[in-house]
C-alpha cells in the first residue's frame, strides 16, 4: 500500500480494537509502523492515530476473517492472548497476508510473518497447558480458589478445561498479573475484572491437605537422582510462587494482595 506518512496506531487493548485498526488501515490505504496500546507511556515520534473501536468496523473485519480458514483464525485468537509487545503488528501483518493468499496462510510455515504469529499463539497455548498442571486450588468452605500469575492472558484457554473437570464444584481463578478472574458455579462461567483479592484464612482441613501434599512431594524424589537443574527447566521458577509444595523455595516477594481477614 502506498504510504503517505509514517503513522503509529493506538488502540484500546481489545481484540475488537485491533480489528478496527485493520479496518482503518484499509479505509485510509495506509500501513501503520506499529500498533500500540493507548496507555503506552513512551510514544514514538511518529504521527499517532488513535483508533476508535466501533462494533460495525470490528464486525466487518471479523466476518472477513472467516475467509482465512479455521486454523488461521485460531492462530490469530491465540496470538492475541500472548503478552508480548509487538503482537498486534504481527497479527495485523498476518491478516493482511491472509487476505492476499487465503487459507494457505496457515500453511506457509517458512514465512517470517506466519512463523512469528504461530509462535506467539504457541507460547500462549503452551503456558495454558502448563498452567492446567501448575494451578493449585485451596478449599475455603467448599469453594475452590486459585491464584495464578501468567505471562499471557490464558483464562479463556483454562475455562473449558476446568469447567469440564470440576463441573460440580464452585471455583474461582484469580489472574493476578492481568487483574481478571474466572468464576464458575454449576453450570455457568464468567470472566471479569477483579482489582484485588483478599483470601480468608485457610482452615485446619485445608492446612492438613497442604501438609500431606508437601510431604508427598518431598518423599517421592529419589535422592540418588537429585537434579535441581532438570527440575527448574521443566518447572520454571516463575510458577513457584503459587505452588503449594514450593512455598519455602519460591522467589521471595511479599504478595501485597493476600490479606488475612
Amino acid at each position: 500500500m502506498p504510504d503517505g506518512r509514517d503513522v503509529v496506531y493506538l488502540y484500546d487493548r481489545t481484540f475488537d480494537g485491533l480489528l478496527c485498526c485493520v479496518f482503518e488501515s484499509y479505509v485510509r490505504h495506509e500501513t501503520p509502523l506499529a500498533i500500540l496500546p493507548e496507555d503506552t507511556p513512551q510514544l514514538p515520534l511518529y504521527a499517532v492515530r488513535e483508533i476508535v473501536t466501533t462494533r460495525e468496523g470490528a464486525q466487518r473485519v471479523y466476518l472477513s476473517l472467516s475467509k482465512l480458514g479455521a486454523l488461521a483464525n485460531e492462530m490469530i485468537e491465540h496470538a492475541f492472548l500472548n503478552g508480548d509487545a509487538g503482537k498486534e503488528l504481527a497479527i495485523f501483518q498476518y491478516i493482511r497476508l491472509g487476505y492476499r493468499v487465503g487459507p494457505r496462510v496457515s500453511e506457509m510455515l517458512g514465512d517470517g510473518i506466519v512463523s512469528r504469529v504461530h509462535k506467539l499463539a504457541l507460547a500462549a497455548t503452551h503456558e495454558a497447558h502448563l498452567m492446567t498442571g501448575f494451578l493449585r486450588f485451596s478449599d475455603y468452605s467448599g469453594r475452590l480458589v486459585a491464584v495464578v500469575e501468567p505471562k499471557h492472558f490464558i483464562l479463556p484457554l483454562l475455562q473449558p478445561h476446568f469447567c469440564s473437570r470440576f463441573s460440580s464444584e464452585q471455583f474461582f481463578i484469580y489472574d493476578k498479573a492481568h487483574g481478571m478472574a474466572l468464576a464458575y458455579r454449576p453450570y455457568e462461567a464468567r470472566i471479569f475484572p477483579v482489582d484485588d483479592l483478599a483470601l480468608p484464612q485457610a482452615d485446619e482441613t485445608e492446612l492438613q491437605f497442604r501438609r500431606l501434599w508437601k510431604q508427598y512431594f518431598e518423599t517421592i524424589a529419589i535422592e540418588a537422582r537429585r537434579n535441581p537443574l532438570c527440575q527448574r527447566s521443566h518447572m520454571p521458577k516463575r510458577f513457584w510462587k503459587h505452588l503449594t509444595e514450593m512455598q519455602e523455595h519460591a522467589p521471595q516477594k511479599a504478595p501485597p494482595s493476600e490479606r488475612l481477614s
Partner: protein
Amino acid sequence: MDVFQKLTILSDAAKYDAACTSSGVTRGGSKGGLGSAQACGICHSFAGDGRCISLLKVLMTNICVFDCKYCVNRRTNETPRAAFTPRELADLTIQFYRRNYIEGLFLSSGVIQSPDYTCEQMIATLELLRGEYRFGGYIHAKAIPGADGALIERLGLLADRLSVNIELPSQESLKLLAPDKSKHSILQPMGLITSGIKENCTDLVKYRAAPKFAPAGQSTQMIIGATPDSDFKIMRLSQGLYRRFGLKRVFYSAYTPVQSDALLPATDTKPPLLREHRLYQADWLLRFYGFEAEELLDDAHENFNLFLDPKCNWAMNHMEHFPVEINSAPYETLLRVPGIGVRSAQRILVARRIGRLDYPSLKKIGVVLKRAVYFITCSGKLSDGLKITPEGAFRALISERCAAMLPSQQGDQLSLFATPELTREDVVKCLTGEM
C-alpha cells in the same frame, strides 16, 4: 498410624516405579461427576530428581510375602510397614484431585497374603472412586503377577491403564533376583490384558456403550543396570513387547541400590542415568521414527554409543543414505535426518506444498540446522560454505555435555574413525552418569 505417616511410608516405597504418565485417554467431565482426562497427559509438578509428578503414586501396602532381592519392600528387609484402607486412599485421592495437585491415582502394592487378596483390596479402592465418588480422572493400576484372570479383568474395567512390571530383561536374571516372580507369572497377565483390550475394541464397535477395558492401554517397566544384560537385548525385548503385546510404553528405571546382596551391584553404585537416557532415546526411535532395534544395535555393537545419541549414531554410520532433498523426500526419510524431529518433519510436509523451502525457512520451521546441514540439500544445494567431513559432522552432532567428556588433547583432531583415548575411569563415569 495416621494418614500422614502412611502416606510417607507408602509413597517412599512406591517411588522406584518409573511409570507415572497420565496420558493415553481423553475423557470429558460428566455431569455430577468429578474429573476428566487428557490424552497428552498433564504434569502437575516436578520432583527434586527432575521427574514429573502427575499422579498420586503409592502402594496400597508395602507388606510383601515376596523376597525380590533388589526391592526395598522385600519380605526379609527391616522397614516400617503400613497399609491404606480403601476408604482412606480414595478420600486422599479425591481431596488431592479437587485441589488440582494430581491427574489421578497410580496404585501398586506389595503382595499381602496372596496376589488375589491384594488385587481385591485394590479393586475395592477403585470401586469406591469410580462408583461412590464418580471419579472421572486417571487411574493407573498395577496388575499383581499371579492374580486370577477374573480379578485382572475387573481391574481393567475400573482403571485407565494397566501394567505388569517385567522387572528384569532376561529370564535368568529374573530367576536369580526375583525367584517369586516367574516369567510365566508376568507374561500371563500381560497376555490377558492384551487380549482383554483387543476384545474390548471389538465390543465397542458393536455396542458403543460397552464398558471400556484399560482405554489408555498397557505399559511395563524394567530395571536397567542391576544385571549384565546388554542394551541390544533390552531393545529387542522392548521391540517384542511393543509388537507382540501392543504395549503403549516401556519404562526403563536406572538401578538405584537400596539393598545390598552378593548378586547385586555394590551399594555405592551410581544409577546409570546416561544409559537410561540412551534407552529412552532409542525407545522413541522405535515408536515414532520407524526404526528397528536391529538397525540401532547388533551383535558386534551391543551397547549404545555414549557420545552420540542413537539417531545421530545411525546417521553417521549410514552416510550412504544422505544427503536428503528436503523438498521431495518422503516423511519416513525426513525423520531420519539428525536435527529433524517429528514436529519439524510434519511442518516441512505442510510448508513445502505451498512453495520450495530454503535454509532460512527451515530455520523458521524449527529444524536444528546445526545438525541437519550435513545431511540435507534444499533444491539440490548444500548450505553456503559448508564442507562435509566426518569430523565436522561428528562435532556438530555431539552434545556439549558429551564433548566435554572427550579427552582434551584431541583438540581439532576429532575423528570418527579413531576411537578417542578413554581411560577405564572415563567409561565408568559415563555408565554411572557422572559428567
